[in-house]
C-alpha cells in the first residue's frame, strides 16, 4: 500500500482577513432582498392552477342550471379505489328536465379513497364530473371527508359548454317528425 501526501497550500492574506468571503455572502443576501419573491404565503396566498390540473373531483351544472350527471354509474364502475357511490334516481315528471329521465338521488365521493386519477372524468359520457383546482382537503372526521351531492355541486359550479344536447333533443321531440 502506498500513500500520497497532499500538500496543503498556506492561506493568502485576503483569505486570512475573511473580508472577501463576507462581502460575497452579503452580495447574495442583498440580491435576494430586491429580487421578486419565488414562494407564496400559503395558505393565505395560493398558486394559480393550470387548466387540466387534477384536483378534487366535482359535479357541474350546464349554463341553464341543469345537473349534467344522469347517474349512469360508469364513473362508479371505473373508479379504481371505489371512492364513488351513486344512488340513481328518476327525474320527476313535473320537472322541466323530465325528458332527461335520470339524475342521481345521492352521489358520494370519499376523498379518503380518491386517488385523483381522473378516470371518472375520462369515462363520463355527459361531461358531468370534473377534477378541478381544489388540491387540499381536510376534515375532522371520516364523514367530513365524504363529499355528498350538494357539496360536489358547490365545488363544481357551472361548466360553460354550449352542447345543450338534451335541450336539442327536447326541441326535436316537440317539433316532431314533420319538421324534417
Amino acid at each position, binding site marked *: 500500500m502506498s500513500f500520497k501526501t497532499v500538500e496543503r497550500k498556506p492561506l493568502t492574506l485576503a483569505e486570512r482577513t475573511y473580508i472577501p468571503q463576507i462581502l460575497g455572502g452579503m452580495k447574495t443576501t442583498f440580491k435576494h432582498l430586491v429580487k421578486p419573491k419565488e414562494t407564496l404565503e400559503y395558505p393565505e396566498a395560493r398558486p394559480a392552477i393550470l387548466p387540466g390540473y387534477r384536483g378534487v373531483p366535482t359535479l357541474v351544472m350546464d349554463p341553464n342550471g341543469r345537473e349534467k350527471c*344522469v*347517474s*349512469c*354509474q*360508469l364513473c*362508479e*364502475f371505473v373508479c379504481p379505489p371505489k371512492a364513488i357511490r351513486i344512488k*340513481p*334516481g*328518476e327525474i320527476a315528471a313535473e320537472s322541466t328536465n323530465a*325528458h*332527461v*329521465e*335520470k339524475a342521481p338521488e345521492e352521489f358520494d365521493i370519499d376523498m379518503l379513497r380518491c386517488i385523483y386519477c381522473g378516470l371518472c372524468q375520462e369515462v363520463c*359520457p*355527459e361531461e358531468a364530473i370534473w377534477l378541478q383546482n381544489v388540491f387540499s382537503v381536510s376534515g375532522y372526521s371520516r364523514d367530513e371527508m365524504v363529499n355528498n351531492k350538494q357539496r360536489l355541486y358547490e365545488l363544481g359550479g357551472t361548466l360553460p359548454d354550449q352542447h345543450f344536447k338534451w335541450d336539442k*333533443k327536447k326541441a*326535436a*321531440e316537440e*317539433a*316532431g*317528425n314533420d*319538421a*324534417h
Partner: protein
Amino acid sequence: MIQPAQPELVTVTIDGKEVSVPKGTNVIEAARLVGTDVPHYCYHPKLSIAGNCRMCLIEMGMPMADRATREPIMDPETGKQKIGWIPRPQIGCATNVAPGMHIKTQSPLIKECREGVMEFLLINHPLDCPICDQAGECKLQEQATGYGRGYSRFIEQKNVKPKRTQLGPRVMLDDERCVLCSRCIRFSKEVAKDDVLGFVDRGSYSTLTCYPGKELANNYSLNTVDICPVGALTSTDFRFKMRVWFLKQTNSIDTESSVGANTVVWSREGVIYRITPRRNDEVNDTWMADSGRVLYKEVQAANRLTAISANGATATLEGAIAAAAELAKGGNVAVVGSGRSSVEEQFLTKKLAAAVDGEAFLVGRVGEGDGLLISADRNPNTRGALVTGLIDKLPESDLSALGAEIDAGRVKTIISVGEDLSAAGLSAEQLAKVAIVFIGTHGSDTTAAAKVVIPTLTVFEKNGSFINQQFRLQKFAKAIPGPAGAIDDLVVLDELIAALGGEATDGDLKSVWKSLNAEVSQLANVTYANLPATGLLLDSSAWAGLSFPEGESLHFKPAAAEASA
C-alpha cells in the same frame, strides 16, 4: 321413463368445419354448436321465426350436380364436389340445415352485410345509453361493437317517437330504442296468449304500440322485457335502480308454485335488485311469471324476524333451543312442516317429528293453475315432503285436523317450521291452549303467540333444493347473506333434534345429504354438488296413486291425463 327418439342427424359444413346437427336445426343454432356466433335480433329459440331484422345474414351453398344426369360436378382443383353458392346472402334464422349444406358466416360479403344492417338499425337510434336500463346487456351495443362499422355517416335529424309510454302496470316502452324485431309481439301472441301488441305506421316510422283500449297487463308481461334485445321495454320495478354490470347472478328456483321455474337472482352487496328466468327447456323454457319476480321483497319486509326470543325475552340460540326442548319434552307434541321448506329441511323436520314422537302436519296450498307456469299447488316442495317421508299423503288445505287434536287435549306443544298457524286455520283460542315454537322468517299472529321464536333464512339466503311437480329435484343457491340475527334453518333444526336426543346431523348440507343418500331410496345416488343446473328427474312411481291437484301446464301433463292419452 321413455327416452325421446334420437333425432336424425345431418352433416353440414360451417366455415369449413364439418358438424352433425339434428335435422330441422336452423343455421344460427347449428353455428352455435361449432362455437360461432351468428348475430341476430328477431330470432328467439322459443318463438316463431319472423325474419325481419336481417342481422343473421349468411352465405349458403349446396354441392352441385349435373341437371340432366344427376352426376356430381367435381372441382378439378380440390378433387371435391363443386359448391354452388347462392349469389346473395340468406337469413340464418329461417334457413334450416340440409345434408351437405355449406355455410359461410365470416366472408367479406357477410361482414359488409352486417355493417350495413347495423348502420340502418342505428340511423334513428337515440344516444340514450347513459340513461338506458339495457346498457350493459344490450344486443345493439354488443353487436355495434362486434360487427358495426364504428362510426356514423348520418348527419340528418333523427326520427322522434314516443318515449316513456307505460304499456302496462309493469312495463315501460321507449319506442325510439325499439329495433322492430317483434319478439314482444310474438311472445304475447304465442306464449302468453294475450295478443295486445302490434306495429303501426310504416318504414322508419314503424312504432310498437298496444291495441287501442288494451294494455300489456298479463302475469307474463315482464318476459317481453327479458327478450327485448334493446332497452325499448323496461321493467318499472327495476327501472333506474341499478346498473346490471354491478349485479351478481345466482341460480335460484321460483317458489310460487310446484312448477319450480328456474330463475337467476341479481344482487349487489347483499341487496337483491331483480329476478329473471333462467332457461330450462324441460321446465320453464325461458319464461317466468311476473308474480315470481317480486318475491325478493320478502327479504326486507317490515315483519322480517331478526331476534331470537324465548318466553317473551330475547335469548341466545342455545337458550331458545333449551327452552324449546323443555316444552317438547313434555310430550303431546305436533310438528307442522312446510311445503315451502327445502328437501333438506323437510328431511330434518321429519327427524324432529321422530325425536319428539309427534305427528307431522303439512299445510296444503291449492289455488288455480294458469296452465303455463303457475300450477294449482302453490307449495314449491310438496313432492319433497313426500320423497323425504315427512308426509305420506297429500296435505289438507288447513290444519283443522290439528285443531281437533288441540281441542281434544292431545296436543300441548306445536313446533312450526315456517308456517303461520293462524293463517292455516287454527283459531286464537286453539293457539292459546298450546305452547308454540316457531322457526321461520316472518312475524305473524303465530309468532306473537309463540313461546319460542327462532328467525331463519329465506330461500335467497341459503342453499337447498326443491322437488317440483314433475318430481324434478332442482337446487337453489345462496344469493345474499341473511340479516344479522337470522340462523340457517338446518342449524336450528339440527340443534333442536340434538337437544331432544334425536338423530342429528352436522347441520350442513353435506351431512344432511349423506343421510338422505342412506335413507331415501330415490336420492341414493344423488349428491348436492353434482346436481345438474337443470335438475334431475326422480323416480315417482311410488306416488303414482296420489291425486295431485295440478292440471296441465308448460312441459307438464298430470299422470292421470298421461295415462288416458
